Structures are given as structure tokens and as C-alpha cells.
């Protein structure tokens, strides 16, 4: 198990063997405001790095979460369908969005310290 890494587009990912878990950062949820709808991908859907995977509608604005590397979805957090606000309350824990099998490893995300200086 490695540490969470962050992208400039405000997703986080956690790499564990060949599976990544993906969500959005606490900073991102704060900027979005109250999240009211989340549109998740289907299991088996394939994404290339930078593709839009998830659509997040909030009271303030809409945002997309992008694939941090080439991957295939293995699991989606279906509890977000009925409780999208979990992303606001626990963005880096219970508010995870998808798990995916890595097809081409690209572990170039920032560690939290670096991300923190990026957003400040």
C-alpha cells in the first residue's frame, strides 16, 4: 500500500498492487459546494489518462473527475447514488468514487505536501 497522490485537476488516487481507488480532494469538494448528483461510470468501462470518468453536480457548479492513468473500472461506489453528500463529508474516505485496474502505470501524482502548496 502506498500513499494517496493528488492531481492538478484535484483527484486523488491510491495505488494498491494493480488497483487504484479514485476520488476528489477535500479542497475540490470545498470549492464545489454541496454535491447533489454523481454520475458514475459502468464496471468494465475503459478510460485513458485524462478521460472524464465521473460527473459531479453541486449547487455552485459542475465538475468532472479525470482518469489519473489508463485503467478499467472494477467497482463503483453506488452509495453515492443516494448519498452524494458523502463526498462533501468524507472525500478521501467513504466518498471514494471508483476502483479500477491499472492498464498503464503512471504514478506521477503529487504527494499531499506538494499538492497543498499547489492549491495554496
Amino acid at each position, binding site marked *: 500500500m502506498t500513499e494517496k497522490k493528488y492531481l492538478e485537476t484535484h483527484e486523488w488516487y491510491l495505488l494498491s498492487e494493480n488497483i487504484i481507488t479514485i476520488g476528489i480532494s477535500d479542497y475540490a469538494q470545498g470549492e464545489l*459546494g*454541496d454535491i*447533489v*448528483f*454523481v*454520475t458514475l461510470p459502468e464496471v468494465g468501462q475503459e478510460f485513458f489518462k485524462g478521460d472524464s470518468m465521473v460527473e459531479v*453536480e453541486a*449547487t*455552485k*457548479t*459542475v465538475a468532472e473527475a479525470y482518469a489519473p492513468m489508463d485503467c478499467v473500472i472494477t467497482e463503483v461506489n453506488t452509495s453515492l447514488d443516494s448519498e452524494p*453528500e458523502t463526498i*462533501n463529508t468524507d472525500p478521501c474516505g467513504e466518498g471514494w468514487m471508483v476502483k479500477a485496474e491499472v492498464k498503464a502505470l503512471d504514478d506521477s501524482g503529487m504527494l499531499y505536501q506538494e499538492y497543498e502548496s499547489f492549491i495554496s
Partner: protein
Amino acid sequence: MVEPYLSPLHNLHVKNNAKFIEFAGWNMPFSYSGTLKEHALVRNDVGYFDVSHMGRLKINNVSIDILNSLICSDIKNIENGKALYSIFTDNNGCALDDVIFWKFNNYILLICNAVNLNKISNHLKSQNVEFQDITKETALIAVQGPNALKILDNLITIPESFSCLADEIFTYARTGYTGEDGLEVMVDIKNLEKITNFLDSYEIQPCGLGSRDTLRLEASLPLYGFELSEDITPVEASLKWTLSNKEPYLGSESINRQLHTGDHKVLKKFTIDSRNIARSGTKVMAGGISGIVTSGNYSPILSKAIGFALFDSDPDTDLLEFEIRGNLVEGKVIKKRFLS
């Protein structure tokens, strides 16, 4: 770069951990505890909004005839002590601003949108209306919600709906912009603590412009710059009920022509059942009639997306097709208010 204006309540907002947004040249609170929490507070209990950014002009009664010739409603024949929602129209009958008047014995208070204060001031000056701009000398606080009046009853005499009153300290009216009952209270900056201490003693929570927007949208109320602009008349904005002015006024010929021919743009309310919000600027089709979304957001009461869209002419179908980021999304026209 011009520094934004700060509300007289700014330090209080900072103390209350507000998230700020720049709005019409003012730095105002967007939210405190979160837009949905604040929305629910106002729907179910009570909350207060600092709306000190809105323009406040004290108009001399001697100018009432001129004033009446600039708006689509009849300010002359309503009683003193009444409040009135109306629209300043231009030569073409289009909206320069939508405003609230509080009509007192010796003056009329005009409350206009912050973004239009200079425009309306210049318009009044050009027509030789006598007025004084008291925006910066005062604060304006809206206390809204089903429990608002029984709390405010401990501070001031509660007026009838759409009426206004003044005592030595507070000038206020029973109007609002949330769909809930409540008062909008104006106070001289030197007496500001008299209202802020009162709000604090009853633990009334502050709410920001984010929830003010979701509340007004759910209450089916228009917002200048979105539903209303210098390209749209009160008839087109579904505000025919404001046309109480029987005398000629600026642009009344165009407005009467639209009423007669029915040949004009049409503002409609809509809902969407899927997990999409059609936001301002989204293209929409109703049969062969094209339109554009003027405001769109999530309705916490209906748990779905709602909004207003302006169509080129009156659609003959209620089925809508929005183009949201390349996808076609279905919605439907709603004839009644969003809140029953």
C-alpha cells in the same frame, strides 16, 4: 484593480467563517455552513441574509409622477405603508431593473439590484427625480423563514404582508426573496448592533448568496442578469401581473403591442428528472422552438433539477430537450410554481 466594497456586517461574516464571493462589486458571503443546510434552515425555521449590497435610494414624494412614468406598475395609487415589486422599463419596454418600493408618507424607498445601482441612479437623475442614495449609510438584512415573524415580534411591530413600517431605529417591510415569510430590515450603520445583537440573542443563523439563489429559484422568482435584462420585457419574463400602471410609461407602447399580438419571447419553468442540472446558458429545444436556460440549479424540496428557460416563442409542447455537455437530456415545462 478596484477593491470590492465590504458590507457593514463584514467583520461579523468573517467571525462566522463565511466563504466570500465577489458579486456586483461587493465582497459578500456565499455560504457559511453550506448552501443546502442554509436552504433547509430558511424553509423549515429561520435564517438571515445580509443584503446590504442592494441599492437603496430615498425618493422625494414630489417626484412620484415622474417615477410612475418610468415603471410598469402603479406606485401612485397604492396606499402609503405598502410595498410594491415593479420593473423600470426602457424605451422598448425592456427591463432596466426589477425593484421593490416601500411607500411611506413623506418618501419612497427604492431597493434596486446592486449591479444596477449606477444605472438606476443615472436614469432617475436624467429624468429629474429627486432622491438621495443612502446605500452606504445603511445596512439591509432579510430575516426569512416560517419562524421569522414570531421572533421579530420581540423587536418590532409586524406589518401586514407587502407592507412597510418605520420606527426611530428600523425601517422595514414584509417582503422577501425566498418564498418564505419574513421581514427585510434597514438600519443606519450607527444602529447596526441593535439588529445584529438581536439576531445573535435569538441564535438566528446567517445564510449566504448561494442559498438565497437556490431559495429564490425554488420560489419561482426571477433574478436580474439571468431572467431579466435589457433584452427582455416584463411580458416576456412572465411578469404580466406587474403591469398595473394604466398611464403611459416608458416603453408602454411596446409592452401593450406584445400583449396584443402575443408575438414575443416566453420564459418557462422546467424540471429535469435525471441527474443533470441545466445551468445558465444551456441550449434547449421544445419541439421546433429553441431556447436558452437563464437559471438552473438543484431544488432541495423537489430533489431534482429545476430552472427557467427563455424560448423564442411559446412552445406547443411541454417536452424539452437540453444539450448538456454534448448529451441530450430530457426535461419538461412546469406550469405551476415549483413550490405548491
